[in-house]
């Protein structure tokens, strides 16, 4: 994977927005959240931001997930890979509360849930993107991104209609933050277009922007590069990394394309038929015989079209 194509300009943005770092990240990470975290050192240091314990899920007798444990540390980019139907998306849906697992818990920031309350997800500092585009087609790109801040809105509809109270300030604030994110992800040129009219790759990026605008502590990306060309993929990988570096966001990422994931993530969990068959650093996963059998063997002749 040609990592050289990362937009290097994005990486220097880490001095931006000091308040990002004042949001109660584990103190051990405050210093190391900027830049690429050395994976070995945090693995045994910090309390995980997210951990799954014994997650099981089935649909009408078909087992989608069986006894999955997973821990995600603050500041890392954590990939979940696996062949089609391995249960990757189901796992993201469990973490974001869209599915209620049949067994097990999701522990977020020290609090344990049997089903994560979807409607409070944003308040918990969790944002996600979707495998199939889930933009609001009838809204402009700017409004799509600004909608990522809708959970914070306190003004009511009457105030908004009459333009009184805090509604004006809120609107100004969310627009300026949306604009910053658009600039960060190089989307300013399409700011006022209706989201539904953009090409596929850009829509994926707008979804990332909508998730990022709330500066979440945990960002769940469900196949952010599915259906992209190789150069779009590496561009997207660059954005994901830059987003982590700039906002100190922890990233959980599902991807089909092993090459992209190897270069991007700190640790990788591999799913196959709903079970976790490996969970280690990219190098270790690369050499794991079970992973090679289950997955990598097929990836070589599926490099570009994977995951469509």
């Amino acid at each position: 994977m040609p990592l050289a194509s990362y937009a290097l300009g994005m990486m220097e943005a880490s001095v931006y927005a000091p308040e990002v770092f004042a949001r109660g990240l584990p103190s051990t990470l405050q210093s190391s959240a900027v830049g690429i975290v050395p994976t070995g050192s945090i693995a045994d240091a910090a309390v995980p931001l997210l951990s799954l314990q014994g997650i099981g899920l089935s649909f009408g007798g078909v087992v989608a997930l069986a006894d999955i444990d997973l821990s995600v540390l603050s500041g890392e980019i954590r990939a979940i890979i696996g062949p089609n139907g391995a249960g990757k998306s189901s796992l993201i849906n469990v973490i974001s509360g869209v599915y209620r697992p049949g067994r097990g818990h999701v522990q977020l920031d020290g609090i344990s849930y049997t089903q994560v309350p979807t409607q409070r997800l944003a308040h918990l500092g969790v944002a996600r993107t979707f495998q199939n585009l889930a933009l609001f087609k009838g809204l402009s790109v700017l409004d799509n991104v600004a909608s990522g801040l809708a959970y914070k809105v306190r003004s009511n509809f009457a105030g908004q209609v009459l333009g009184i109270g805090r509604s004006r300030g809120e609107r100004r604030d969310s627009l300026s933050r949306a604009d910053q994110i658009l600039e960060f992800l190089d989307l300013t040129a399409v700011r006022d277009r209706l989201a539904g009219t953009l090409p596929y790759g850009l829509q994926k990026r707008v979804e990332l922007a909508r998730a990022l605008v709330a500066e979440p502590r945990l960002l769940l990306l469900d196949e952010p590069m599915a259906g992209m060309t190789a150069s779009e993929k590496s561009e997207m990988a660059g954005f994901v990394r830059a987003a982590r570096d700039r906002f100190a966001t922890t990233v959980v990422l599902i991807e089909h394309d092993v090459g992209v994931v190897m270069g991007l993530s700190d640790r990788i969990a591999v799913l196959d038929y709903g079970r976790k068959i490996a969970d280690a650093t990219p190098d270790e996963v690369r050499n794991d015989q079970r992973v090679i059998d289950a997955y990598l063997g097929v990836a070589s002749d599926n490099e570009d079209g994977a995951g469509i």
Partner: protein
Amino acid sequence: MTAITDEFSSAPVLPKWIAPVLLLAFAYGVVPLIGSSYLFEAILLPFLALSLAGVGLNILTGYAGQVSLGSAAFMAAGAFAAYNFYLRVEGLPLIGSIVLAGIVAAAIGIVFGLPSLRLKGFYLAVSTLAAQFFVQWALTKFSWFSNDSASGVIDAPKLLISGFAFDGAVGRYLFALTVVSILTFLAYRLVSSQTGRNFIAIRDNETAARIIGIPVLKTKLLAFAISSFIIGVAGVIWAFAYLRTVEPDGFDLDRSFQILFIIIIGGLASIRGAFFGAALIVVFPLALSRLGGFLLGDVFDSGVLDMSQRIVLGALIILFLILEPDGLVALWDRVRRRLLFAWQST
């Protein structure tokens, strides 16, 4: 059915408030002087009432994506509530009765909107029929609502606002125009506010909306409440300013469909669209009747007219859905752009 959010986006060179202001100036300053009583009674008054109902339904269906087949019920609720408030509450001014009537309609809207919290699509559309049948039944069954008049007919009170009587066709026109203008302006502000964008978000992708933290349940009920409020006030205009005498049967399922057709033909998720659609719905039967009488003479009796109206209306709906899903508004904008372009290039 993609929504256009930048409402009132006029010609690129003009500020967007110019067109509505000019239109209002014309409607207030010129129309009352030149209009015939036929124009007011047969065209403008029903047009204004139905436009407002269309604006209300568009908020719910066009923006928030919740299909309702019970609009006429909320019109009826508004009309009968205003009548009773005005009749039974001593000293309550007309405006007060109208606002309270809107609130009653909104409350009924919330009750019948509750199923939307669990139901989607067709299931919800069918359940809004419950509102249609229940309200119509209640108004017919309990004569208290119509002050014990025969067959539930109510007569509108005089339109008095702080001592000024809106008499005659022109007076009632000005009254309706004022109410419709104010509510339309507020509706326009609403759909371009955060709440309006939340409506669209829920319509376009409910799961994503929930996950980014939009309060989906609250927002849906709010859409039902606001929409029903506006439709309820439209019912008051229909009863008090247009017909002056109404009965529950005038607010039947066909009326609900008529309002749905208005927003489909005019353009879903467009405030202007409701006015375009209402204009077409009001004018086309009159035009059809003239045309039919002219072409076919005596064969074109009222029965034939009624049937051919249904056929043409049905065909219009299908044609718009297939050829111009964004409605007359999109058609108008395109024509205007062409004209502007042609004008600029000469």
